[in-house]
């Protein structure tokens, strides 16, 4: 709970810091705030702020929040300086508030924390998406996200109401116990309620039938925000889904696994096929994240079926690190508000290290060995093979198709002549951070257990 508090306070300070003349102040405040939060996590300080029925620190929550904070730290450190009138202090504070919501989700024990977490996470995002006020595209993205987001949260609230109606409590354990011993006599509307909740979280994760917002919003909003959305927000909503499927509605496994698996298959194919035809890279990555999230959903179902969280966490981690790396680099290549394939031409000749790091990130998303992505996909595929052979084949097929468009990007980076003027990127901090991230991905590929053990020993044990 303390970490959320600290993040909230830093958010406030950065908001007020905008009145002070020093332009760099919000950056320093943000960074120091996140570091303090990380330290508190390490020292396992509770300060008595513990509400067992609302929010508890599971080992899972610790690991995932460390990852989330690390990602946030990287975003704060390394994002590109946008044009003058871009109000960074507001962006920092909104990002911090949204991360509070995300961490709230990580440790939820109660439907209320779920609802609050989702709302705290998404409301700042609506504004973030529209943060480039003078660009119509960003505004449109913001509005779209807002309308669809609030529509989904209406579903969520309705679902919670119905579930409360049938189980007379919000707390996780009580709902589970009610389901176990009254399984037969639960009123009909319980079922509707639980489906509505799952649907709204599916929407937040942008899984296939509910994904329509993500390509437009990813493309419209500024790349830093897209980066934030693609990594930390996806992390939050996936953990929320995990708690729903593994926690609240664990006993409904047969029921939801039957309709969730076709959804994942649909989103595998959709993400892969639509990705092929794009030439705007942000949209392409949006579709690729749709198919990745389908993998995450499959991993969640797997972890419920075999109650082993390892596969799920590992996949989430590799995916978020890889997409952060890619979005950070794309942030620097952005012209106007979107990046087209030709902007990447001959990148290897302009910035060799950046090109290499981007290549490693893309390879990890494509799932090529020696990168984390491969191990993650491999473990999910091995698991799903026992569960359902069709999903296995479709998953394999879609990753094969996806390799097609990942290679389009690689092809542009290495083999096309340099058509862009050489915009000198002097930010060697970026180069440093990016190469560290690339190394992390490679080590995830070669020594998969290493990183998790380090975090576990450092933060959880």
């Amino acid at each position: 709970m303390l970490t959320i508090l600290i993040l909230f306070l830093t958010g406030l300070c950065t908001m007020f810091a905008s009145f002070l003349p020093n332009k760099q102040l919000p950056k320093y405040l943000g960074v120091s705030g996140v570091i303090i939060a990380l330290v508190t996590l390490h020292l396992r300080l509770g300060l008595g702020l513990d509400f067992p029925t609302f929010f508890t620190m599971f080992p899972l929550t610790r690991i995932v929040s460390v990852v989330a904070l690390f990602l946030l730290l990287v975003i704060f450190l390394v994002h590109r300086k946008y044009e003058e009138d871009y109000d960074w202090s507001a962006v920092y504070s909104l990002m911090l508030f949204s991360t509070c919501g995300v961490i709230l989700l990580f440790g939820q024990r109660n439907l209320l924390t779920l609802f609050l977490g989702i709302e705290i996470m998404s409301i700042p995002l609506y504004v973030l998406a529209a943060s480039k006020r003078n660009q119509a595209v960003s505004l449109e993205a913001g509005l779209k996200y807002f309308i669809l987001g609030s529509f989904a949260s209406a579903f969520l609230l309705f679902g919670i109401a119905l579930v409360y109606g049938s189980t007379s409590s919000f707390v996780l354990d009580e709902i589970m116990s009610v389901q176990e011993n009254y399984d037969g006599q639960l009123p009909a509307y319980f079922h509707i309620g639980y489906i509505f909740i799952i649907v709204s979280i599916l929407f937040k994760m942008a899984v296939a039938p509910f994904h329509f917002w993500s390509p437009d919003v990813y493309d419209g909003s500024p790349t830093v925000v897209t980066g934030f959305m693609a990594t930390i927000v996806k992390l939050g909503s996936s953990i929320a889904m995990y708690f729903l499927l593994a926690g609240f509605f664990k006993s409904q496994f047969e029921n939801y696994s039957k309709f969730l698996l076709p959804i994942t298959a649909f989103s595998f194919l959709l993400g892969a096929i639509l990705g092929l035809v794009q030439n705007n890279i942000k949209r392409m990555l949006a579709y690729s994240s749709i198919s990745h999230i389908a993998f995450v959903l499959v991993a969640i179902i797997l972890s419920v079926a075999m109650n082993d969280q390892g596969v799920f966490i590992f996949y989430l981690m590799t995916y978020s690190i890889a997409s952060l790396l890619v979005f950070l680099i794309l942030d620097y290549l952005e012209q106007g508000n979107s990046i087209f394939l030709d902007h990447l031409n001959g990148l290897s000749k302009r910035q060799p290290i950046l090109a290499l790091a981007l290549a490693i990130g893309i390879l990890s998303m494509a799932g090529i060995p020696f990168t984390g992505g491969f191990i993650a996909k491999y473990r999910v595929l091995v698991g799903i093979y026992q569960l359902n052979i069709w999903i296995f084949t479709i998953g394999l097929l879609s990753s094969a198709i996806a390799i097609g468009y990942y290679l389009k990007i690689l092809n542009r980076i290495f083999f096309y002549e340099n058509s862009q003027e050489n915009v000198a990127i002097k930010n060697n901090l970026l180069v440093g951070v990016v190469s560290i991230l690339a190394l992390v991905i490679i080590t995830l590929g070669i020594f998969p257990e290493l990183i998790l053990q380090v975090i576990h020993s450092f933060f959880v044990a």
Partner: protein
Amino acid sequence: MHLILILPLVVAIIAFFMPHKLVKEFSLAFSGAFFLLSLYVLFQYNPLNYYNFTYYNEIFLAGTGGSLHLGLDSIGVLMFVLTNFVVFYVNILARNKSYTSSFYGCVFLMQFALIGVFSSLNAILFYFFWELALLPIYYIVYQWGSGKDLTKAFVRFFVYTFVGSLFILTAFILFAVETKTTSFEITEMAKNSLAGPTQILFTLFLIIGFGVKIPIFPLHSWQGNTYRKAPAEGTILLSGIMLKMGLFGLIRWLVPFQEESLPIIQKIILALAIFGTIYGAAIALRRNDMKLIAAFSSLSHVGLIAAGIFSYKYIGFQGAALQMLVHGINIVGIFYIIDIIERSSGTRYLSELGGIASKAPVFSTLAFIIILGSIAVPLTNGFPGEFLLLMSVFMYQPILGAIAGITIILGAAYMLRVFQRAFMGEVSEHVSEFQPVSNGDLYALGFIVVLVFLLGIYPQYVLDLTANGSQYLTNLLELKNN
């Protein structure tokens, strides 16, 4: 042993960041050193115990059932030497061309990946190195490849190789899940066996996966214009070693797990492989571009090797191991010759060539001997391997053996046609300003000629080496079948 594996990686990384000027000498020296090292390993290898130089470490790839488990068995050592030989020759050939340092880095990365492929005893590790080997060659072929529309060839090459490797992954997953083994060590995998239908699936997937690389007949169409578009060094790497990866995969991962030897699949693949040999030879007869002829000729040679393996005979494995080494040497020689001709006369099309023999007699005699080697004339290295392979196919099925025999006739026909058009006859205007071939190239070709005769007259050394390797395979097959 692990020292031998890691070294190329270290050198690759250094080569990537070397300044362009001195990277050429640096990489030539290192590849030479690796070749000598590999010869030392070869002579020090005792064929008796099955896996030499094993190195085990489990934190690597923990959790996925994989582990860093390397070991060179008899056929692995041969391929290890061949890899270093080919990389050494790539550097020799590249010394008179100006390549950036990332080219040399890729070459050494290839070497690292290939040694990994030949020495890994763990299925996942094998798949790791297999995929890693695809990246640098894809980079070399398309960064320095000539030819107009690279994207078309790129789509074909990449769709084939990557989709192929996905099949291999599925096969391994299928094996692991069906037999409930957690670890992918070859020793454990060999113990248990698969039930009927999954066995067929497992074999089919592996055949498709390796077939793309070998290439067996229907999966070969990437080979034609990839060879044509790739730079000479790229083709040498591709034809010299990459084809052997597929074959080695067959021997290492497919044969030991063959259940009641599925006669239907074995027959189909054998027939396909032999049809591939005829197919390749027939096409090579009429093509005008030397590189294409060499490509289809290696398609036909390799098809015969695959047929040899699939006849599941002791002689077949011996012949295949020997012929893999021999084909590697010959094809490197042939592409070296094509490169020299292209460099000196500016064209590699037979219609524009002629009369090189009168211009460069020593070069043409060396070229002739290498061509003899690839036609499998006795006393050259081609003959013993081809003899054993044809015998094993003949023992399996006499009619198929006879059909496979036709390739030695067609082989002679198209190779001599190449020699005829390019070397004999009147001096064509392209060849008139044929610069004299440099001594360095002549010594390189000379070394290959020495190898051609050495293996031709005394193949027994290689046969002893692979004796207990193939014996192990045949006992495994008998043990599993009856």
